[in-house]
């Protein structure tokens, strides 16, 4: 696939150099007599190898699956490491290293039965001890290190092996309604002895998981090469060699794809979509992601303290047109803080319609006619973030009784203000995005809209009590409570509801593959067309 060019790959030349050195040594021993030694490696298989190269925006920050917090790293390590549960392409929870998962009656605990016949890449068999150790390595600072992922398993106190059974018991601090959701998204299982025998530097440069691919070579900042693991507990992957590279420039990635130098690229900008689709040999694949883009308005400041004014802002914008024209259709209009694929989504709510007259009237009713407002937005962090902000402010500015402008912000300094801990430090009106890989609406609302949420700009007692109620419920009951919270948020408009972001990929036409909604690229799912 990628080796259709006649250049020599790094691994090839190392092989060549090694072969050359070996043959030179042999020739030396033989005293220069005898036949010439061939140094050209012969292809091991007769059929064409199925090699795939993926170019992301950045390289992984290391290979320790429990010591990072970035999607690009996740995408790489998830081909070598697996969890007890996983998700399919649309986000539904699936079994992985566990064959059964259930709540333990009468206790705040859950049980995972660990699959048999699974081996790590070093050949050792997976044991329940490995699973328990991996969980404890994340949640317990005394086991290993302070993992930056400990809050991804929020509510998990620790894990232990159930005596005499091939099962692990996970203890929770409370009922923890989202525990299976968390385990389906996070927690990569590592081998206890391998982790304990090696130092941190080694673990971050090497891999020993149970996944369908094993590490071949890792060159920091340049490439990660993985090969198919033949003893995988499911069918071995169709792909022989999987290479990860990075190019921070979107246009560089697109050119690499069109040239056949890479097979899958991330984040194709909307203006490049046509070029990819019109090319011979590549296409665009897109999927709704778990990221929601919204405009927060601080409830404690004029003019946003008026619910009429906040509603007016939602009526004032033509969201459908923004999705079509700014995002090129790669987005979906939202009506609530929870995305359609998530637990707690309320399907009865529609996005606010575009109604400038209604908006103008509501502004009058709010008593804030003549208001001047400024939208803080990051640039280049989300798909077309600045353009979305300009469109939103443009529509609002068209109202005869409101003046709106955009202020471009450096992402780092904007986040500093958002994370300052108090609502007073946050800008009055800002654009930001939030991804939630657990597919749980409750977590999103807790973080963004609860009174004590990480990024909150709103306080509403009724809303808080609904979230609290949901925290002690599970299943359909919890879902219903969260739907009610969503309806309240829709009515009260703490945000201007914007779009669900799409993940847009460029893919080589000879590969059969569908984009996923959790921003992961699953090469195990790929096949040759």
């Amino acid at each position: 696939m990628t080796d259709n060019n006649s250049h020599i790959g790094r691994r090839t030349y190392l092989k060549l150099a090694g072969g050359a050195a070996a043959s030179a040594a042999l020739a030396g021993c033989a005293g220069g007599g005898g036949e010439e030694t061939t140094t050209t490696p012969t292809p091991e298989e007769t059929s064409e190898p199925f090699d795939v190269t993926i170019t992301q925006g950045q390289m992984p920050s290391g290979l320790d699956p429990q010591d990072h917090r970035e999607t690009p790293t996740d995408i790489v390590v998830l081909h070598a490491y697996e969890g007890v549960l996983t998700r399919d392409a649309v986000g539904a929870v699936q079994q992985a290293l566990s064959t059964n998962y259930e709540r333990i009656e009468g206790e705040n605990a859950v049980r995972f039965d660990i699959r048999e016949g699974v081996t790590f890449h070093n050949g050792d068999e997976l044991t329940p001890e490995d699973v328990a150790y991996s969980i404890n390595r994340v949640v317990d600072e005394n086991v290993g290190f302070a993992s930056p992922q400990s809050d991804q398993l929020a509510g998990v106190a620790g894990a232990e092996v159930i005596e005499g059974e091939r099962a692990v018991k996970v203890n929770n601090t409370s009922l923890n309604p989202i525990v299976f959701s968390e385990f389906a998204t996070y927690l990569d299982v590592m081998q206890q002895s391998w982790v304990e025998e090696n130092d941190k530097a080694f673990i971050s440069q090497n891999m020993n998981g149970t996944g369908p691919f094993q590490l071949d070579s890792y060159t920091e900042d340049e490439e990660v090469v993985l090969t198919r693991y033949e003893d995988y507990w499911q069918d071995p992957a169709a792909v022989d060699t999987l290479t990860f590279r990075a190019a921070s420039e979107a246009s560089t990635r697109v050119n690499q794809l069109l040239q056949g130098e890479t097979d899958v690229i991330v984040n194709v900008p909307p203006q490049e979509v046509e070029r990819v689709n019109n090319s011979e040999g590549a296409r665009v694949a897109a999927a709704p992601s778990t990221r929601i883009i919204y405009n927060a308005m601080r409830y404690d400041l004029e003019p946003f303290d008026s619910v009429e004014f906040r509603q007016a802002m939602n009526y004032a914008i033509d969201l459908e047109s923004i999705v079509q024209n700014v995002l090129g259709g790669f987005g979906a209009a939202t009506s609530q803080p929870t995305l359609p694929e998530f637990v707690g989504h309320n399907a009865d709510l529609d996005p606010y319609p575009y109604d400038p007259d209604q908006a103008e009237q509501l502004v009058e009713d709010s008593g804030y006619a003549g208001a001047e407002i400024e939208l803080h937005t990051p640039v280049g962090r989300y798909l077309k973030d600045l353009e979305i902000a300009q469109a939103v402010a443009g529509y609002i500015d068209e109202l005869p009784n409101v003046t709106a402008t955009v202020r471009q912000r450096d992402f780092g300094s904007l986040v500093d203000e958002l994370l300052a801990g108090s609502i007073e430090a946050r800008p009055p009106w800002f654009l930001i995005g939030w991804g939630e890989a657990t597919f749980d609406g409750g977590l999103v609302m807790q973080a963004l809209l609860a009174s004590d949420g990480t990024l909150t700009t709103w306080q509403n007692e009724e809303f808080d009590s609904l979230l609290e109620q949901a925290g002690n419920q599970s299943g359909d009951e919890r879902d219903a409570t969260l739907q009610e919270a969503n309806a309240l948020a829709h009515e009260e408009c703490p945000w201007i509801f914007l779009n669900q972001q799409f993940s847009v990929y460029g893919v080589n036409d000879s590969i059969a593959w569908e984009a996923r909604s959790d921003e992961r690229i699953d090469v195990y799912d790929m096949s040759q067309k």
Partner: protein
Amino acid sequence: MSLSRFLIKRSLQGLFVIWGVITVVFGLRFISPGDPANVLLPPDVDPEVRAQVIAELGLNEPLYVQYWDFVSGIPVGDLGLSLVTRTPVATRVITKLPATLELAIAATIVAVIIAIPLGVVSATRRHQPADYSATVFSLVGISTPNFWLGVMLILVLAVQLNLFPTSQRPIGIDGIVLLLVGGNLSAAFDGFTTWVWHITLPAITLGTYFTALITRLTRSGMLDQLGQTYVRASRAKGLPETLVRYKHALRNTLIPVITVIGLQLGTLIGGAVITEAVFAWPGLGTLIINSINARDWPVLQGSLIVVAVGFVLVNILVDALYAYVNPQVAYD
């Protein structure tokens, strides 16, 4: 002043400059927005986890402690650990240096091969079509932005005409050397052609401005020399015109040109940032861009220190060489 005293004096000055760079870069870190921890961790991280990470990275230490930790490591080659990968900065920077040097040298070669003949032709055919074309060429070259030229070269020569690859550096000089040492001549030759094939577009992109500059310089230097008395004397003696032009006049013209080439090499090392980003060239420039995006200050500081050291070294060398080549200049 003797050469050795000159070198000592300039080295001390150089150290002072490097220390200044370190201090400025270190200071920038504290006035620039964006807490590294906030960029490293997504906003939804638990505040306790955030505090742990900050403590682990040493970002909660007082300023002077962080400054001292940083400066005291430099003499022994310890540039600290990357905030993102937690690996030694020195290793990361040093492993990126060959790619950037290769690119800078290739760009210089492109520039010298094109610029010097062009400058000479332009000076000897003053006010003729050749001269005008050379002038237009340098004007266009000087005013073309790097990133635009890079993107255009990729679009036309790589994507449309399929003559060159768009990016990557599959083999470096180090790889070719490895093959040569192994005695594998044919693979080394293949490696070399691969290298040339991949480096051509980035080298042209990076070298264009430089080419234009040297063309102008050679032209004016040559014109200046051709008007000198010694040239007229040589002609009067009956020396052939080619000998006068290329042996005598060009040699004297090249003295200042060599100085500029040397100085520009330093600029190219630091200025490869955009070119490297466009061609995904795994050198210091790409490292700098990525560490800015990730707010990976130790890596950024380390890269800038290496660039500064390189620049200072090249400067001293060029000054020494210049005085050596041109005895009219004294070491002072």
